[in-house]
């Protein structure tokens, strides 16, 4: 069954690139939804359940780590896989993301193959 995906990034350019990677990945991805920050992302998952989330960290209004924390505090979203994709590559941020329940971390700049490889491991 195809997995619906939510992409969370304040850059429309990155959302477009990730959308293309997902379409070409042949990993059984269904519909792809977009949100520009953590707050929009929370609204989006309330309206439309998804099976995978790709999220940036450094975003206005609500950043990716706050979003992940909020997501994990709700039972119905506790187990939705989240892959963080960010320029924030410090060990502290990566550890924080993993402790909050991220399934993986990809550092920008990324190649399509890096994203596909991570997604293959998660899906």
């Amino acid at each position, binding site marked *: 069954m195809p997995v619906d995906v939510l992409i969370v990034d304040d*850059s429309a*350019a990155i959302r477009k*690139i990730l959308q293309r990677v997902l379409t070409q990945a042949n990993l059984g991805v269904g519909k792809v939804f977009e949100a520009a920050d953590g707050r929009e992302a929370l609204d989006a998952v309330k309206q439309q359940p998804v099976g995978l989330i790709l999220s940036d960290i450094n*975003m206005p209004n609500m950043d990716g780590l706050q979003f992940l924390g909020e997501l994990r505090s709700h039972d119905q979203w506790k187990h939705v896989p989240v892959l963080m994709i960010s*320029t924030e*590559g410090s060990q502290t941020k990566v550890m924080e993301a993993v402790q909050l329940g991220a399934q993986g971390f990809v550092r920008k*700049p990324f190649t399509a193959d890096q994203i596909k490889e991570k997604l293959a491991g998660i899906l």
Partner: protein
Amino acid sequence: MVQELDQGKVVAAIRQATGDVFSTMLGVEITSLDAYRQPCRPEPADGVIGLIGLTGRWTGTGGLACTGELARKISGQFLMSEFTSVDQEVLDAMGEITNMIIGNFKNALEEEAGPLGMSIPMVVFGHNFTAGTTYSADWVVVPFACDGDRLEVKACLVPKPENKSPRRPAATKPEA
């Protein structure tokens, strides 16, 4: 005299970050040229600039500057599209490219400068504008040759001033 980070390390970090972003996400060849220092005194400029604030034990700004034409070409490579003008999509793409370059520059510099926070990128396009900072230190500028044009990546970081308790006004004696 303003305390400064090792310029060699700053230049190396900018070259590495810019090279990684261009080779990984743009597939565009760039050649690094001689780095130089530029006073923070603003001078009139044309084109596109992307800026990001950095803060921690050191504070300042990192960014890039190029012509509108090069911004269109870079954004076209990034998004696999063609842009005939510097529109919102080009500004967004240049903001993300600034974010990736300065983000990776920041990551490389944290070993020496300690943890640094980053602001959301701001991108400006225009003609004959000035963009300056209030810092007293110089920008370290690293130019790159790119597709017959020129891209400049620059950074300016100074130690964060220590918090001082507000001074009380000096007591004055009434004149006799």
